[in-house]
């Protein structure tokens, strides 16, 4: 977690640019409109004065409604942990990091092979995220392939709720979000308690271009009314589901997330809406949606700038890669997009270590490596403290030309405070590195990951809560599967 960025945030749009993107977005929403496939949302939008074509399900949203929804939005959102010490706040330039969810494959980094991900993998990912000091919120990384598909979101959530005390976010995957809320409510002692201690957030998406799907819109409204954090952001790809130009894709992304906010804020004034987008490109040689693309990084910078313009809490992405295995490309892309996302000043940065292979493969070792990268980035973005003490004039004059600072009290006092210490990156002299087994980064990350998983015991749910959660999950399964 970075409490507040000290050094300048990368601002890549001028004030004029920001205003033009905003104005263009309002024009798109007012003149082109969005398709809304959920009946209640259509009714709601009609009631508040949007121009609704019920037969085509096209809603044209007047500018004042978009502006009013922004005014109704929260500037600060509490995202609670099961344990209060893990609470995070989404506001200002506070930067928090978390995993992603949805990888259907587990990468074995010893053999570089993949196999279908299981609930046990989601459990281990949650445990690992619970233990790593630079991970602030938990998404279960994998999505269980060993449970019936319609209920897999319930099992992903179950794995996370049981294995971390940090705030939990899950992807809705179109399931009725009421079930997710019931499970989280079981853990904290009821839905009223859950409003006070919102330990669950939901990630859901509009479908680009400009479409609010039935299930996702229903879930958006459900979470809005429950006063729980909602990330409702599109994932358009330039040249396929968005224009080729970066500015055009920005306008569309902005229109998609802001029209979601209109639905949320009029369903419930003061809904905990989190703004952003996962905008990238369709690769022109392979057709894939790239996770390592510099275009995504630049969209992260621009969307964070727009989010701050609206004073909305901001979602972003980092720590992911297009590589198929945990190699140089993976660490290069993950390191760079993590840094850019952090330097953008976004409040929730997801997909840390989760996504390789275009979101299909998850690697626990990459999570561990990203934890080290985040620690380094957090150090960088804290900047330099300039005070009389840190300017060190006394000790400079005491040591004088030709002396050394090793044994100065000033050195001992500040070395731990001012310097970053690696826990995974290697700084041994070569002979010692050889003696300790000539291990590369991936091998060391694997050992550290295995050690954490064998030693770390997340605080368990109390026995009766655990039993209740099991019952709630079973009921939800029956509800979903219609038994």
């Amino acid at each position, binding site marked *: 977690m970075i409490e507040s960025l000290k050094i300048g945030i990368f601002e890549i749009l001028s004030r004029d640019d920001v205003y033009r993107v905003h104005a263009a977005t309002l024009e798109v929403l007012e003149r082109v409109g969005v398709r809304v496939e959920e009946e209640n949302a259509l009714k709601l939008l009609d009631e508040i004065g949007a121009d609704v074509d019920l037969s085509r399900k096209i809603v044209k949203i007047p500018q004042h409604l978009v502006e009013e929804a922004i005014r109704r939005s929260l500037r600060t959102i509490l995202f609670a942990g099961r344990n209060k010490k893990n609470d995070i706040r989404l506001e200002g330039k506070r930067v928090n990091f978390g995993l992603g969810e949805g990888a259907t494959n587990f990468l074995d980094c010893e053999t570089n092979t993949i196999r279908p991900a299981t609930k046990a993998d989601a459990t281990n990912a949650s445990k690992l995220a619970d233990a790593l000091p630079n991970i602030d919120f938990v998404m279960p990384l994998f999505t269980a392939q060993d449970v019936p598909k319609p209920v897999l979101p319930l099992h992903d959530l179950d794995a996370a709720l049981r294995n971390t005390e940090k705030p939990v976010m899950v992807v809705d995957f179109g399931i009725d979000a009421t079930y997710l809320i019931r499970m989280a409510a079981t853990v904290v002692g009821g839905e009223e308690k859950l409003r006070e201690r919102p330990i669950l957030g939901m990630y859901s998406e509009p479908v680009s271009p400009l479409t609010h799907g039935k299930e996702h819109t229903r879930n958006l409204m459900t979470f809005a009314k429950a006063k729980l954090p909602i990330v409702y952001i599109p994932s358009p790809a330039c040249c396929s589901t968005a224009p080729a130009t970066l500015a055009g894709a920005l306008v569309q992304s902005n229109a998609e997330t802001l029209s979601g906010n209109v639905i949320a804020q009029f369903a419930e004034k003061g809904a905990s809406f989190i703004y952003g987008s996962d905008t990238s490109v369709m690769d022109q040689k392979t057709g894939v949606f790239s996770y390592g693309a510099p275009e995504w990084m630049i969209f992260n910078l621009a969307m964070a700038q727009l989010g701050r313009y609206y004073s909305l809490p901001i979602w972003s992405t980092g720590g992911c890669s297009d590589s198929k295995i945990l190699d140089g490309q993976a660490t290069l892309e993950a390191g760079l997009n993590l840094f850019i996302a952090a330097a953008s000043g976004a409040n929730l940065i997801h997909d840390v270590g989760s996504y390789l292979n275009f979101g299909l493969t998850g690697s626990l070792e990459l999570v561990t490596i990203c934890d080290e990268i985040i620690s380094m980035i957090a150090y960088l973005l804290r900047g330099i403290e300039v005070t009389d003490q840190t300017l060190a004039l006394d000790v400079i004059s005491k040591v004088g030309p*030709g002396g*050394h600072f*090793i*044994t100065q009290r000033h*050195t*001992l006092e500040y*070395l731990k405070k001012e310097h970053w210490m690696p826990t995974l990156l290697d700084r041994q002299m070569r002979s*010692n590195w050889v003696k300790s087994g000539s291990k590369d980064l991936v091998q060391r990350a694997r050992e550290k990951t295995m050690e954490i998983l064998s030693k770390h015991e997340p605080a368990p749910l109390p026995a009766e809560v655990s039993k209740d959660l099991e019952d709630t999950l079973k009921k939800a399964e029956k509800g979903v599967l219609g038994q």
Partner: protein
Amino acid sequence: MSKVGDAVKEALLAFDQDKLVETTKKALDGGHSPQELIDALTAALKEVGEKFEKGEFFLAELVTAGEAAKTVISEYLRPLLKKTGTREAAGSIVIGTVAGDIHDIGKGIVASMFFTAGFEVIDLGVDVPVEKFVETTREKKPDIVAMSALLSTTLPMQREVIEALKRNNLRDQVRVIVGGSPVTDEWAKEIGADGYGEDAVAGVKLVKKLLNISE
């Protein structure tokens, strides 16, 4: 560990020389012998060295503890001992940076680590002339002569010293070790040194190996 041992260790781990001096004086006033205090300091230093190797202490802390202990032993405890020895040293080491080279820090860290590991250290400083190494070897009869060179241009001075020791029939009475960032194993072999350590920890291990001291 004795009570006085605990007090010495605590003062040493505060990395505060003034506190260590004060604790030492108090212990002497309380009737503890200088030898007892030297032993306590040596034991505490050994622990600091071990913790550094495990990554629990940092380099600056290791060197600071070594320097503080050295000062207390040489200025406050050694003068009180009737016999000339300071402590039951594991061996004695003459160390210096070769002529033409004024780099002090690396050599200083190694010297400090030798002391911490229980060796008697005679530090000749920097820019040490060839003759000075020879003279000191003749007079002090150390077990080890250790030479540092940071510049590749001053590296040949390490060979000069070894040749001078040979000319003065001293080479077979002493082990010679070399260090410094441009130094390699090959270089050490080429000039006929007895060994090379890549860093300070390796240097201590090397000396212990040469003198058949178990870890």
